[in-house]
């Protein structure tokens, strides 16, 4: 109540009609310019990157995407090892993160007691606040040695006959990068999935419960189908994050511009090679090639982002549609 009366006093003090109109136009123009800045920025970004990458684009053409040669000395560049590393490390990350993220999302939205929900949710979000370089530091000195000494040798011993899991084992490599990416995208996927699940109207759950469904059957039958677009959107957003993650990956992937023979071998991603090599480019097409890589990554993440947002919107719309039909 006191806030309202103090506002009222302020309003009365401000009610001077004189310079309003000029002020209004000026302010509107400023706000408009600020909004336009975002649009211009995005357009400029694509344009600038294209400009700097053009020498490489015209030199290597479509072969850039399929060539495995990355040779700054002879000024020959190919993107395949980096595209491979980026995609495989991200897919590895998804493989590990998605089941856990969904488990967490289901636990927090359906099974956990009320008092636990906000605490646990908060803690999972804490994972998202840790800077990438700190993940990388921990990755180099804790995770990589641990994986290299325990988990990876175990795989090589028991599954090493499959070329995918063959040694030698270095600690750093594609697999370690996958693990650290999985940890980093876990909060994203679980938070958005959880929101989608919470948007499912409760009378859907009651319908299943009234038929004698067990708690898991209730989730499977009434929550998951309706939350599915949002969950897929969450996974795609997580994938987008993994594709663009730079520092933590650079520090644990081994930085080898070759397509690795096994998942325990060192590799390279687009973001990592840019981070490692950009500040020390040799003359010639080196920089243009790196910027072309950046452009490729930009386009991929752009498309994924669009797709994800469309899907996440769909759950919100469907939830409100089934609600309004009853009215």
């Amino acid at each position, binding site marked *: 109540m006191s806030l309202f009366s103090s506002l009222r006093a302020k309003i009365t003090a401000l*009610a001077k009609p004189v310079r*309003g109109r000029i002020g209004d136009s000026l302010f509107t123009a400023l706000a408009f310019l600020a909004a336009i800045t*975002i649009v211009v920025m995005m357009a400029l970004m694509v344009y600038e990157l294209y400009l700097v990458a053009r020498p490489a684009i015209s030199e290597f053409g479509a072969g850039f995407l399929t060539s495995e040669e990355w040779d700054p000395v002879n000024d020959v560049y190919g993107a395949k090892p980096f595209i491979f590393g980026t995609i495989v490390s991200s897919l590895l990350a998804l493989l590990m993160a998605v089941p856990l993220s969904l488990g967490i999302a289901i636990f927090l939205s359906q099974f956990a007691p009320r008092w636990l929900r906000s605490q646990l949710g908060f803690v999972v979000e804490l994972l998202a606040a840790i800077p990438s370089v700190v993940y990388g530091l921990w990755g180099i000195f804790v995770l990589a040695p641990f994986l290299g000494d325990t988990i990876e040798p175990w795989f090589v011993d028991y599954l090493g006959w499959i070329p995918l899991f063959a040694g030698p084992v270095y600690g750093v490599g594609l697999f370690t990068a996958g693990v650290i990416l999985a940890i980093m995208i876990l909060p994203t996927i679980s938070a958005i999935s959880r929101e989608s699940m919470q948007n499912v109207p409760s009378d859907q759950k009651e319908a299943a419960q009234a038929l004698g469904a067990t708690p898991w*059957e209730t989730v499977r039958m009434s929550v998951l189908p309706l939350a599915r677009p949002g969950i897929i959107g969450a996974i795609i957003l997580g994938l987008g994050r993994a594709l663009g993650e730079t*520092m933590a990956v650079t*520090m644990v992937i081994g930085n080898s511009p070759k397509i690795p023979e096994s998942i325990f071998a060192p590799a390279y991603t687009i973001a990592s090679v840019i981070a490692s090599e950009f500040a020390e480019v040799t003359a010639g097409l080196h920089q243009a090639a790196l910027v072309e890589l950046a452009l490729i990554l930009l386009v991929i993440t752009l498309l994924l982002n669009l797709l994800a947002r469309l899907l996440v919107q769909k759950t919100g719309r469907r939830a409100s549609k089934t609600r309004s039909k009853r009215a």
Partner: protein
Amino acid sequence: MISTLHRQRRNFISNAAYLFCALSAVIALIPLILILAYVILQGASALSIEFLTQLPKPVGETGGGMGNAIVGSLMLIGIASVLGLPIGVLAGTFLAEYRSPRLSWTVRLLADILSGVPSIIVGVFVYTLLVLTIGHFSALAGGVALAILMLPTVARTTEEMLRMVPDSLREASLALGISRWRTIVSIVIKTAGGGIMTGIMLALARIAGETAPLLFTALGSRTWPTGIDKPVASLPVQIYQYAISPYADWHAQAWAGSLVLVLMVLILSVGSKLYFGRKMRSVR
């Protein structure tokens, strides 16, 4: 009609599912605890006044600190704020207060897309824009990169918070003859202030930890900052460079730097939510 054996199997599956989900939550906690534990333990042992206030020693010598990196980070955050906050808040104000369906939809979409662009690409972009053209690395370029990264968060949060202010407040103000812009600035934005501040603090927390966009804009340095047109050290970049170096002393300093950085980020994100959340609640 339904056998008890089958019912038992269904209950078993349900309990197993519950267990898996609960276990997932526990598994997610393990890396968090491990990372925080290592950062705190390793970092604290290398933390000292010398670390916080001294410049780095030449390569090979032990000792020294990250004083310049800490100051550099603050400087970069400052530059980013000066550039990014006004544009972000104004853009959010435009989205919330002015009706222009097509433009607003485009701006919102692009802001969302911008927030998904990998930060290293923003770094490359600012490099082509400000480093190639000017001819050398600079703190300004680093600040611009960080400002671009904070734009979407600030704009969207501002828009959301402004939308929560009831229309009756705007109408009351306009009906008294107060101009539109004054209404927005002194009444609406003021009322939503707490929430907007929270969004700003969260955006700052995010850019405080960013490394990639600084690698080829602000670059780094081993001296105190000398000007916004010169390269400048920053905590995340310094941590990175020390971490990948071969010197054990530098590794220890990297942990100490991480401790400082994590504390900074956590205080900003958690603290802002608590403080301004309380303020917002008392306003209502």
